């Protein structure tokens, strides 16, 4: 009844929220959704940039080609390794750093500020820096390992197909762990101290406190950060591109990099888009999980 009696909301007030949202929505549509639709559209065409007059609709031919393309499978395998090692490694390192930074010690503020440096540096700078660290002639890594007698001859980390991908994974782990550290640190500060005091009174050891209070307290943050990182790491090609360009051979090709090289260097936008679209479908599961979490948090 009361709802019926309430004065009608004026049209201007009903329209206002949409009017205020529309610039953001329009921009998102223009710079996110339009290119996405364009990529899907291009993936269904024969579209090679240096033959501008040819733009034939070929249905799913590019996708069929991808499935029969051995480089597609090599790249997919590398992408799985890339995500499966990088993200957990970043998370564990981030967790350890956050636990450390959560302790009381002198200059803690400075340490918290410094730890963010790898995250704040541009990827290209990081990639070039690590290329020098790994250099087989002058690199500091080989020099240290040789001095410690851990290796007998310099290892060409980035030119050796057995080590190249893992060398880049280490670089990306170093670059990305501060993100986890900062997120987890914020999460740690949200866990009430009284829980630990109560647990201590009950005689819980440090490990049990960590296992039963800290970890459950961080679960939400860890989940969100991990999902976000999976999506970012999966798509990140800048560091690989600068460090090896995908080489030697196909040793450091990941799917997004393969799509990029096809489109940008090979100028084959049809096939490149098909690769990108296929990879998006693979990633979609993680994206949906993340969106559901994000939606639930807002709700």
């Amino acid at each position, binding site marked *: 009844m009361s709802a019926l009696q309430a004065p009608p909301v004026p049209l201007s007030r009903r329209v206002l929220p949409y009017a205020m949202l529309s610039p953001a929505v329009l921009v998102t549509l223009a710079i996110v959704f339009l290119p996405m639709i364009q990529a899907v559209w291009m993936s269904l065409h024969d579209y090679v940039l*240096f033959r501008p007059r040819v733009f034939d609709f070929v249905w799913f031919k590019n996708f069929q080609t991808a499935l029969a393309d051995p480089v597609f499978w090599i790249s997919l395998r590398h992408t799985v390794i890339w995500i499966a090692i990088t993200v957990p490694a970043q998370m564990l390192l981030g967790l350890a750093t956050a636990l450390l930074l959560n302790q009381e010690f002198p200059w803690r503020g400075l340490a918290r500020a410094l730890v963010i440096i790898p995250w704040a540096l541009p990827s290209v700078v990081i990639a070039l820096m690590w290329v020098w660290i790994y250099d087989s*002639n002058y690199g500091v890594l080989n020099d240290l390992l040789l001095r410690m007698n851990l290796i*007998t001859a310099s290892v*060409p980390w980035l030119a050796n197909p057995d080590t190249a991908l893992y060398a880049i994974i280490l670089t990306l782990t170093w670059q990305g762990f501060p993100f986890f550290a900062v997120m987890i640190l914020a999460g740690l500060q949200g866990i009430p101290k009284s829980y630990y005091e109560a647990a201590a009174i009950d005689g819980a050891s440090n490990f049990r406190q960590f296992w039963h209070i800290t970890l459950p307290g961080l679960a939400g943050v860890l989940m969100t950060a991990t999902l976000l990182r999976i999506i970012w790491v999966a798509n990140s090609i800048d560091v690989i591109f600068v460090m090896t360009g995908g080489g*030697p*051979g*196909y040793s450091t090709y990941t799917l997004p990099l393969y799509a990029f090289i096809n489109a*940008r260097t*090979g*100028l084959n936008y049809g096939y490149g888009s098909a690769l990108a679209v296929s990879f998006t479908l693979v990633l979609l599961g993680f994206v949906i999980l993340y969106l559901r979490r994000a939606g639930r948090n807002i709700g």
Partner: protein
Amino acid sequence: MITTRMTRRVAAALMASTLLAGAANAQTVNFWYHFDNADNPMSDLVAKFEAENPGIKVNAENIPWNSYYDQLYTSLAAGTAPDAALVKLNALPRLLEMEALEPLDARLDAWEGKAEIQDNLLTLTAAADGGHYYLPVQYVVLYLYYRTDMFAELGLTPPETCEQFRDAAIALTRDTNGDGQTDVYGFGFRGGRGGHDHWASFVLSREGVGFGPGELTSAAGVEGSQFVVDLFRTDKVFPPSAPNDGFQEIIGAFKNGTTAMTIHHIGSSADMVATLGDNVSAVPVPECGGGRWTSFGDESTAIFSSAQDKDAAWKWISFLSSPENNAAFNVATGQLPVTKTDSAAWNLHAERFVDATVASLPFANLLPNVSETADFANTVWPVAMQRALIGEISAEAMNTEIDSLYNK
């Protein structure tokens, strides 16, 4: 007081409108180029050109070499290309296929500077249909750099043949300080993009080997690639980083003594001499399998069909290939001028490097003048060579990949 203020306002308005009108009248030529060296000489040439041609403004942009063609092709397709650019001959077929080039024949014929261009250069840079779309601006020929001090120390002479080259490379690869580590490698091989010139000297020199059907997959063709792979995998005369090495790495390694030989052109000679003095010299690449093959390194300028003001763009590119300006351009790039006047007066390079260049001219070649060459140089060769070097595929499989690119 009021009059003064009025006068000032009128003067300001007049100035503003003059500037605006000037800006509207001035034609801008957007020009892309790539220079390795950091000290950029383009600004002087641009200033000189703008002083000689009032009303034309040149916006010259140095694009990083590694992504130069990626950027050029995508900008052409996107309609954001420059008006003119520095281009290599192996890009000509693809640019023609994209219908991106402005024919230059009529302008060339009407140009007084045409007679100044060295005789064979306009023939070399013509398209397959005989038309001209390129105006030469510099050239080089690749040759073999070697360390005279290291050769003298071991009593070696510069290699004349592939066999001598291999023997010398093996002898030069050594541990000089007794720590059990190899300190010097015989040859700095470029396994990354741009390294096809190195490979070609060892492979395309062989009798009957080129890019025709079955030529690379013939016994001689496979033997050539196998020779390169063996140098790395069996003889170990390349630095271990060779599969990924590019221009910076091979030049850096040669200058600091990590390698005793490498292949490049006169463009790097001044830099080499500055570091190594008399300890560096050059000879033509060795004879392999009955012949010699080296790369003719060309660089021309071209006007794109999308250019706003083609006359202004022509004025600018013809300015760069005119005597004196062409010399200034080549002093900056360290390569060789294309005009007769500048060539006659050329004294930038030490004589031994000019001699090696001239001695290499008779067997200097270009890659096939077809669209596939762009893919060969940018993707197919680097990936196949790297895979062969790291043992993922055989030399024969590598050659088959290249053969199937050219002979689909």
